[in-house]
């Protein structure tokens, strides 16, 4: 049995159902992210685990104990909020000690634990300061220390980085991940930022309209999206409109390429999806498909040059590495892009990917795993 089990959870507010039949099993020490756009039900789901919302149906079990009907203060969870939520009337040390005192630790034990926590987040010097004397990043680190001080069974992070500056966001997410791995805390992290989810998680739950669209490792989610929603929400994706032919052939913009189109009859319209980094301007043995088109725009991003190319009605993004010896191509130039048939995903009209899930391998063009999009 898994450490944290969510079974068949549904949540309705009146006639509005925000979470539909949500199932998830989280192993001890695992870091799972709920990723999705606003209003997808990810925060509601987290609040159900925390006990702030009661599910309309289904159950939540932590370490074998059914906590579905239990109030939050007996669930032994730690939670970090987007708005920090430090107690403004208490010093940093008192904030961190709050959960320990509630748990009945003696002053000495609590003090020891507080010191340990503040060392962990490298904020020993702020011990006697008040929250309003700290920066946003410091406040959120204190909030994290406060949450993990009483040794919670599950750590719940509700968009903890959203209110911070971009630079601190990146450094703090590394700090959170390192702390989580060092302490081995089972963690659920809610975010709408795919970069955060991809870089921090053991597994990601991509959510849309109250449903878990796909559950998988960041690698699987990014490279093998199972639905059109996941494909378009995580990372950047170029879409080609084409017409299926016999024997894994597809006609795109009057040119024939090779791509698996399971279930598509000849003559049927299909949509092919490609990651920018799967495409190249140079042919290779694996990149046997070639498409001729026209360059629409070129973005020089430093190490990477992102080219937008048009093939009649379709557009693709191509990521290539910056080559100091060669200036990037210009707008309006003709261009030929090359890609491997294995990197093409065929999406049908309903948005479901036809790719068999078992075929997991690194895409040939995965030199840049940078999720540059969004």
């Amino acid at each position, binding site marked *: 049995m898994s450490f944290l089990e969510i079974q068949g959870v549904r949540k309705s507010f009146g006639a509005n159902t925000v979470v539909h039949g949500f199932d998830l099993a989280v192993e001890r020490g695992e870091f799972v992210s709920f990723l999705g756009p606003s209003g997808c039900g990810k925060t509601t789901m987290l609040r159900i685990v925390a006990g702030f919302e009661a599910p309309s149906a289904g159950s939540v079990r932590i370490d074998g104990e059914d906590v579905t009907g239990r109030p939050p203060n007996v669930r032994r969870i730690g939670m970090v909020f987007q708005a920090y939520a430090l107690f403004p009337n208490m010093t940093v040390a008192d904030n961190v000690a709050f959960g320990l005192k509630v748990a009945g630790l003696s002053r000495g034990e609590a003090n020891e634990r507080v010191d340990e926590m503040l060392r962990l987040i490298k904020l020993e010097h702020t011990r006697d300061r*008040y929250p309003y004397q700290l920066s946003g990043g410091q406040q959120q680190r204190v909030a994290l220390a406060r949450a993990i001080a009483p040794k919670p069974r599950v750590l719940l992070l509700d968009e903890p980085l959203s209110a911070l500056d971009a630079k601190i966001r990146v450094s703090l997410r590394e700090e959170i991940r390192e702390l989580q791995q060092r302490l081995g805390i089972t963690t659920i992290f809610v975010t709408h930022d795919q970069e955060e989810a991809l870089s921090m998680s053991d597994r990601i739950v991509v959510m849309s309209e109250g449903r878990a669209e796909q559950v998988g490792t960041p690698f699987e989610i990014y490279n093998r999206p199972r639905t059109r929603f996941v494909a378009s929400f995580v990372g950047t994706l170029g879409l080609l409109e084409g017409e299926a032919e016999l024997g894994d052939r597809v006609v795109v913009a009057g040119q024939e390429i090779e791509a698996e189109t399971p279930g598509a009859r000849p003559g049927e319209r299909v949509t092919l999806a490609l990651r920018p980094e799967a495409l190249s301007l140079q042919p290779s043995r694996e990149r046997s498909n070639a498409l001729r088109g026209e360059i629409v725009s070129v973005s020089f991003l430093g190490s990477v040059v992102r080219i937008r190319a048009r093939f009649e009605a379709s557009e693709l993004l191509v990521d290539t590495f910056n080559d100091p010896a060669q200036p990037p191509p210009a707008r309006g130039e003709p261009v030929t892009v090359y890609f491997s048939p294995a990197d093409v995903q065929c999406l049908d009209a309903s948005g479901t990917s036809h790719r068999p899930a078992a075929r997991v391998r690194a895409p040939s063009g995965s030199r840049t795993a940078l999720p540059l999009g969004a």
Partner: protein
Amino acid sequence: MTGSRAGPVAAVLLCALYFLLPLIATFEFSLSMIRNTWSFEAYRVVFADARFRDTFLFSAVAALATIVLGTLIVVPTAYWVRLRLPRLRPAIEFITLLPLVIPPIVLVFGYLRLYNSSSWLPFTATVGGTNVLLVFGYAVLALPYMFRAVDTGLQAIDIRTLTEAAESLGASRRTILLRVILPNVRAAVLSGAFLTFAIVIGEFVLASLLNRPAFGPYLQNVGANRAYEPAALAMIAFAVTWGCMMMLQLAGGGRAGRPRRARFPKLRTRAAP
């Protein structure tokens, strides 16, 4: 002085005179108990009067009891309404404003009918019971001021997130109220408390009709029977009220090193990437 400013200055001076002249006259009169000389004789007489000390002490204790009772009623109510029953807030606010609309005499007559010595709950049968009833009545009179102050104080902090943070750390409702909510609305509770103190010290109707030896009825009694002492008493009452107001200012201003109010980051709307 330019001509354009003469008008406003004149208006301010006129208003100041309107308020200050009676005060100055009363003060002047309170000093003239002994003929042909100014003295604090009237004050000496007042302070020497045992009834002054007794009634003032009685009213001060009643005021403190009212503050404690009012805090116990208002803080949890305002907190709970804001947290869980926001739709009831207009109704609760209306109820707390009723004491401003309903005259105290109506209130006390209602009390006397409901709780007289031959009723099912005979508060007025004993002195202690009557005192308790008096404090209950004072708490009702203080309700508009207490509720407004505390509700505004709660508005300044994010009570929902603070409550959830405390809950996730294992705190019970009582712990949350005592250790998280109350300290953060301390200034608001204090400002409500000083207003309550000022009201209770001068209150006449409830104390008089319940026949309790409070400061208000004593003021009235002296005013009806003596010449110079009422003026001195008025000045003393005035000083007490101003003392309360100044303490209110200090409490509202917060102590050094403490935040005047909670500082929270503005929540960003959760925009999709």
